[in-house]
């Protein structure tokens, strides 16, 4: 099923290109140690790995928030450092453990974000209508954000990240900390949105089963390096493992990369 989509939706255009990304926070902290990968337009690409492996740092660089110490990255041909303004127009970013303005209502929050994105009034209305559907919050959108549960907040933020139909959605741990029902809901939103709108998705997760379900292609990141990459099925076959978790244990524990 997944490979069938891969054939139909991938256009051959390179959506994200990362080349030798290195990020050094201080002398002792080397978060990224030469990360390279490419994502084609229309793909759902997953970065997986344990906490502290460098997933968030990678996504923040692609989202123009951090500057790489070495290496470079492009989003649809635009450099994330030199042409960050262009990149920001193309992306939608869901930060890890993000929040929303507590004293605003969910609706006001969406309006605030939509005003940065919309070029005219009809576009603005369209975005908000889409956000209402994605978040599925109904009348609760009129409540202040501080009254939201974790699941509701996450749905609001996912809506804010993709309501403008970005060409690239960057989703950092989209389901972390959520219960099963909310996690499944968010996965379905991401999946159907990518399929319907042809949005390229770059997501990170430490939940490898989730990634296996969602992603066309994954990269396993460990200690700031990509240690394996490919479609989940291929990786499982290559390492003779029943699931991605075992693939990870295999590549991380082999010693060759640690």
């Amino acid at each position, binding site marked *: 099923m997944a490979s069938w989509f891969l054939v139909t939706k991938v256009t051959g255009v390179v959506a994200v290109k990362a080349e030798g990304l290195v990020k050094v926070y201080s002398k002792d902290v080397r978060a990224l140690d030469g990360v390279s990968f490419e994502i084609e337009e229309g793909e759902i690409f997953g970065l997986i790995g344990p906490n502290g492996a460098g997933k968030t740092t990678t996504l923040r660089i692609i989202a123009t*928030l951090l500057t790489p110490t070495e290496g470079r990255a492009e989003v649809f041909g635009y450099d994330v450092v030199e042409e960050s303004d262009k990149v*920001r127009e193309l*992306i939608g970013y869901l930060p890890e453990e*993000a*929040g929303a*303005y*507590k004293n605003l209502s969910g609706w006001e929050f969406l309006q605030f974000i939509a005003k940065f994105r919309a070029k005219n009034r009809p576009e603005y209305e369209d975005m908000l209508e889409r956000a209402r559907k994605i978040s599925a919050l109904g009348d609760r959108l009129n409540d202040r954000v501080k009254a939201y549960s974790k699941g509701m907040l996450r749905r609001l*933020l996912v809506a804010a990240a993709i309501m403008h139909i970005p060409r690239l959605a960057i989703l950092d741990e989209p389901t972390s900390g959520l219960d099963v029902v909310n996690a499944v809901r968010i996965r379905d939103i991401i999946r159907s949105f990518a399929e319907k709108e042809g949005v390229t998705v770059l997501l990170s997760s430490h939940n490898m089963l989730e990634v296996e379900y969602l992603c066309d292609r994954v990269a396993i990141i460990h200690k700031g390096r990509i240690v394996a990459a490919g479609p989940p099925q291929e990786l499982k076959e290559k390492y003779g493992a029943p699931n991605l978790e075992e693939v990870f244990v295999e590549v991380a524990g082999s010693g060759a990369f640690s």
Partner: protein
Amino acid sequence: MEHLANVVKKELLELMRDQKFIAGLIISVLMFPLMGTIVGGSIGASTAEKSVIGVVDYDGGEYARLFQEYLSESAEIVRLRSLEEATEDLNAVIVIPEGFSKNISSYLKADVEVYVILASSSISATIKSSKATGAIMGAQGRLSEYVVENAGLNPDFTLKPVRIKEYTIFEGKVAYVPPEVVSNLVFSQVAMLPMVIFMLVMFTAQLAITSMALEKENKTLELLLSQPVNRMTILVGKLIASLILSLISAFAFFIGFSFYMSQTVPSSTENIVKNININELLSLGVFPTPVSSALLLINVLLGLLAVMSLSVVIGAATEDVRSAQSLMGLVFPLILIPALTLMFTDLETMPLPLALVVIADPFSHPMIAAKAAFTNNYSQLLLSAAYLIVFSLVSLYVASKLFASERILTLRFRWGRRRRVLSLF
């Protein structure tokens, strides 16, 4: 422009709905009027009431009777047989010894003993006691008029042969105005305006730091920074919103404070002012000219710009509103010290080291400018403005650099052991 309005609107909604802001606003409106009602109410009551004076008359002669009659014009008299009968209800007791009338009629000084009773340490009791003393002095004056008139002289001339015309020299200019009128006026302006400016600077710093710390606390900064909006727009939007809200707060404070002043400061000054020529007063130059006012406004706005930029940087380096507010303790003395020193002294009369500290402190200058505006000291106003321009541009530049770089996300003040010291503020 549209983006800027969007940021400002968001900031206003987010800050205005913050419970702490609303509580602070209510307190700043009500604090002084409440104080004023309590203090002013009791002062008002005690000024309206006459003081009660007990009199022990061992003399019984004509002058003793006259003295009591004059006394009863401005105080309530209670006759006592001895000092021991005095109660706490009385404000003072006068003992007129034997021979009082005899001494006066033979042009010799007569004695009275005055016992002032301080019933409690409250303001109203103190006021009534001093009113009792005043009544006794008044009776003394009336008695001397009577004696002089009895001796066949004109008391108005004999007791006050010299007519005093009071002029005031202020900043080298002379006017036919009693000095207490000018000093009262100068004091109310010099005390009031720096007070309001001080509060304005404090509110602004607080709001700017909170606006930034809220982004950190709510974890909204990353999402905001990934939007296609100029970082400078975000910064300026935050500054504008902080300024608007602090102006509202300061206005609320000003209303409360002037209500308090009108309640506590006696209206006697107003009466004196009514009787004198307002043009004479204006000729002293105790009011700022339009140019001074404009320069003062520029100084205040620049000071606010500087304190906001600084606060945004501090706010960006914190994790939440609470730690941001404890870091405010670092900026707070910079605002408070000049406010206090300038309220009670002048730069010229300060010890040199203190004066240098105050001059070096950028947040002194809006208050220095407020004083200079009332004396229309243009060179001081321009100097302060020049210093503030440099300082606020530098701090704005630092803030904008911070916003444009990734350091806005990664900046942390490392305090470690210093944390304990900081939390003391």
